[in-house]
């Protein structure tokens, strides 16, 4: 055949092969972790291998909507995983074990189900058994009702409570061991012998609750609540979040609505340990996620402190 024909055929084949080969080559070589909404499979892959002490370099991309990425129990700054874009993350794990990674931007009613695990291998010289959560060691039944028989007629004020507290000896109530194991109602009962009226005792209780936390914890708790809880429980905790009507239906077809965290009957009868149990474990026959592998203990106490602030007027 003529030389021009040969050359043009070569040119053609080169063009076609490059157009097919270059994308294929790079696509096969790029190990992306795809984020998809849970209904479409969630994280893919959802199990990642790593070695303790060696940096793990991840490339994340979203295949549909805005997602985020963070590793649980590490108090890690989350990164956004945007549709069509690639986010680079480098993690280093000191200790071997199974870590949970999760989505940090709400991506639908099943957002919280978007989780995967990182299996970190390595020799473990100091393995410590996981600490037993407080509600377990206290023997609390997280599923049992915890209504407070008596509730305040109006929102108790910690400012008034502070003034009352000067006459009471409340030091016994302002320490983690007491605070975490007792509900506001129990504290109310403990103070009934002081001879003060009900509403004044509630004011004192609210001051005690405020004293058991810090302003910084409340701010952190509010942030955690807004990012993780408000979508179902409502921005003001009333159980009226945007997903409240979209949760899975229970077997006897009664719609499960998220708990109303502003209800004093329910909340004042619950101790922090009880709330911690509910948050850690979830379930209870409702759509409540289990946060045990996600939040650190510090984060959960901050969150619980914030949730109580729906009941009391702090300053």
């Amino acid at each position: 055949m003529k030389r021009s024909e040969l050359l043009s055929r070569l040119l053609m084949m080169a063009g076609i092969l490059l157009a097919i080969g270059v994308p294929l080559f790079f696509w096969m070589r790029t190990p992306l972790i795809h984020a998809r909404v849970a209904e479409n499979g969630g994280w893919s892959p959802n199990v990642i291998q790593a070695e303790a002490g060696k940096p793990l370099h991840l490339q994340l991309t979203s295949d549909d909507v805005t997602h985020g990425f963070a590793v649980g129990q590490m108090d890690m700054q989350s990164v956004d995983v945007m549709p069509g874009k690639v986010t680079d993350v480098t993690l280093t794990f000191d200790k071997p074990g199974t870590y949970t990674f999760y989505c940090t931007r709400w991506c639908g009613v099943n957002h919280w189900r978007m989780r995967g695990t990182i299996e970190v291998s390595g020799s473990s010289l100091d393995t410590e058994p996981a600490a037993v959560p407080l509600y377990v060691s206290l023997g609390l039944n997280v599923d049992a009702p915890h209504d407070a028989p008596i509730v305040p007629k109006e929102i108790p004020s910690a400012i008034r409570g502070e003034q009352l507290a000067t006459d009471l000896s409340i030091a016994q109530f302002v320490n983690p061991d007491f605070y975490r194991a007792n509900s506001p109602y129990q504290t109310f009962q403990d103070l009934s012998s002081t001879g003060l009226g009900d509403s004044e005792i509630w004011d004192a209780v609210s001051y005690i609750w405020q004293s058991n936390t810090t302003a910084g914890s409340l701010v952190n708790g509010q942030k955690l609540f807004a990012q993780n809880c408000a979508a179902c429980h409502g921005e003001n905790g009333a159980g009226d979040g945007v997903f409240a009507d979209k949760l899975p239906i229970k077997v006897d077809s009664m719609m499960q609505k998220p708990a109303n965290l502003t209800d004093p009957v329910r909340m004042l009868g619950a101790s922090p340990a009880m709330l911690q149990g509910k948050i850690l474990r979830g379930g209870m026959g409702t759509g409540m996620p289990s946060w045990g592998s996600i939040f650190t203990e510090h984060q959960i106490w901050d969150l619980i402190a914030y949730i109580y602030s729906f009941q009391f007027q702090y300053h």
Partner: protein
Amino acid sequence: MTKIELTSHTFIKSALKNRYPQLVVLVVMLAGYIFAMMAGLIGTPVGSHNFSIVFVWIAWWAILILFAVPFFGRGWCAVCPIPLPGEWLQRGAILNPPNKKPKWSNLRWPKFLRNIWLQNISFLLLALFSSVLLTTPNVTGIILAAMLFTAIALSMVFERRSFCRYLCPVGGFVGLYSQTAPIELRVKDKQACITCDGKPCYNGSANGYGCPWDVFPGGLTRNTYCGLCTECLRTCPNDNIAINLRSFASDLEKPSARLDEAFKAFIMLGSAMIYAAVLLGPWGALKDAAYHVGTSAWLIYAAVFLGIVFILLPSLFALCAFRLENFNSFKKRFTTLSTALIPLGLMFWVAFSLSFVFTNASYILVSLFDPLGLGWNLFGTVNIVWQPILTPILAPAQTLVLVGGLIWSARTALKASNEAKTSSIPVIIYCFVVTLIMLWLLL
């Protein structure tokens, strides 16, 4: 305006007759097409960041409807890569002159399909699931592959570029609207063709192939079916083929009387309005219905879509062509008057596309430098934030385009009604009403 013969300039003529410049352009186009196909099939599923969606439905569409068609008629067809692999296989060569015997079955396209009805249908098929097509890279990739392989298959069975002439969904409207373009390919002297022996422009010669578009260049009076492939420039022994610059819409001075083309005009006019309502309007229910292909809502949407383009628009137009006393030439009046909808439809599509392109043009740079969504950043522009461009001039531009289209279609209606020997008033009122609807939908 008198015609200016562009090919009278030696530089232009030799550049067009030489096969190498064309080959280089075609190789680049084919590689780009295949790359877009690959990006659609294996790249990120996010449309706005995938090369296939951005470069087919934003960049290529903008170039096609805003420049190529209005100014170059079938100019896109001249560089389109879809027929190429099939044609090279059909010819058994890329550059070599034709063999005496065709390599494959080389059948003639069936007579009853020698019209653009198949193109009307193929366009509508794509239009009905356009919400999915425009936003899902996989689907775009599959359609690109389907068009390429269908063209190859047809080239193995039928002669010439049968896909391009009779099936391509794009070719249907590009051909119709090419009649408005200021460029044309015609013979210089019809007498020379009459005395020409063998008609190599149509049958091929040692210098080149017979017209792949199944057109006899000597008989060309309008642009609709000439794909500007320049084969006839190479084969004509009398140097009788010219590419001319001319006034816009000269072809509409002699309007065609074909029903398939008339319905193409209605399909394009109707789909421009429906796209404007569904894609650019604030009505979420319409978008849901259009997107969820296969649901009952979509079936209703599809039925309404087809009803508008096949029944509502044509029957209202039929009233404009209806005259009790002269019913026999009703079809001729109908088809002749419908040529007024050609410039109108083109301007509708330009106005609609301006909004779509200005809003999404910023994605072009992003997907150019990370075409597969793998995290590349070839020129540092991958982090450009989405931002619409030229927003202040959009509404005035759309008004100019639509009012200009109205003027153009009114003038075309006046000429067509002279030809059809009927009043132009009903047609002009029709054009006025649909223009008002389009203005309301877009502004």
